[in-house]
């Protein structure tokens, strides 16, 4: 299975996409576990193509104004706020 093994670099790449920092121990441990789990997921190859009959209807509500959270309540759980807005870190 060495071809399919997950490298620490791949784990770091995916962690970067998901915006989750990992320390070196976590990277090594996840690389080992992901190899096992992904090998198991490979058995999906045996699944035939299946027609999916989706019996769905869109549900729309009238486009009318209605009450929503007031600003103060919406900001209550924010770590930082300024002038009635959420305050995030610098974009770059």
């Amino acid at each position: 299975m060495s071809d399919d093994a997950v490298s620490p670099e791949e784990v770091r790449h995916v962690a970067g996409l998901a915006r989750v920092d990992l320390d070196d121990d976590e990277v090594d441990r996840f690389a080992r576990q992901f190899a096992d789990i992904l090998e198991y997921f490979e058995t999906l190859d045996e699944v035939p193509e299946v027609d999916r009959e989706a019996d769905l209807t869109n549900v729309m509500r009238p486009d009318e104004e209605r009450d929503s959270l007031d600003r103060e309540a919406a900001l209550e759980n924010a770590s930082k706020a300024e002038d009635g807005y959420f305050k995030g870190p610098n974009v770059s």
Partner: protein
Amino acid sequence: MSENIYITEERIEGADDGPLSGTTVAVKDNISTEGVRTTCGSEMLAEYVPPYDATVVSRLKEAGATIVGKANMDEFGMGTTNETSHFGSVDNPAAPGRVPGGSSGGSAAAVAAGEADVALGSDTGGSVRCPAAFCGVVGIKPTYGLVSRYGLVAYANSLEQIGPFGETVEDAAQLLDVIAGDDDRDATTRETPLEEGETYADAATGDVDGLQIGVPTELLEGADEGVVETFWDAIAELEDRGAEYHEVSLPSVEHAVEAYYVIAMSEASSNLARFDGVRYGHSADAEGNWNETFARTREEGFGDEVKRRILLGTYALSAGYHDKYYKKAQDARAWVKQDFDEALSEADVLASPTMPVPPFELGESLDDPLQMYLADANTVPVNLADLPAISVPAGETDGLPVGLQLVGPAFGERRLIRAASALA
């Protein structure tokens, strides 16, 4: 309380009068309660206080229920033992020293210990039925769309439903009567199929005369011997009361676990992207730009199992892998649905052990995530097929609770309640 059932103990009184007046309810801590912190069992939301109630919580209050606490759970619902909770594991009141099952372990334990009359949990791949089985109580996973998910913190939203626990089928059904039905805040809900004057609770008659039970052989393979024996004893009891059983085959379920985990992890990677420490939740004291700060916040706020699922979901959806994993998993999901439809065209309900094993010892199985995932083999197919199911106590093996799972057709909750009430 020695079992560590609640993350937050707080009384929320409902209306003076209603069908649940005098009834105490434990609510899983991923269901929003206005003014009472809702942690999802995670450090990420350890201080989060929702500014609004989930629809099911509004309905509990209107029905006169008293909420007695926010129940412990696996972090964001991701676990089968309740041991991934940031707030510590829960001891099983029905089998001390063992796990209560997950992810709604605190909810099931609250009912088993008599700390609450009934409880609410959520079931994404078995998270109501597994702890019901392990704690020797009743748990219902409703048909997808029967119960509003508004205010339920999302993990895998195409799979999950809020569901009730009770000591008896009738108790759980009574709670279902209060929470079921359409909600204009959740576009996936629809009205119950109940006729005028009908309720779920009044279906708990125990009448199984003429009931046709299908037993999918795949869901018995590889199960613990004592569990299988207890399962057949329960089927024999139903036969004594006029039910009949025949074996059926669901070949697709051999792929259900991998399909479930690919879909659930993919949805989780998207749903949990909202936790960035800006609008709510833990916020790292980090220098750097937007991306660097988010990555630190998420490293600190999420536990191992949550990181694992976010990363694997991101991987399964990433360029070059989407067709190999996610698309195939959706094919498997459609196949599972077809298999269930076919089996249910020749049986009223399908029966299996809820869990293939008795409750694990605390700490027994944390190190091998794949082995944990495989324990969900009998519960995840039901979520993939959007169907209703109930877990009802079947008996014990070596003093440990065993659950019987009954699966019915979409919106066939009354049929399940009637059949299961023959046992509890």
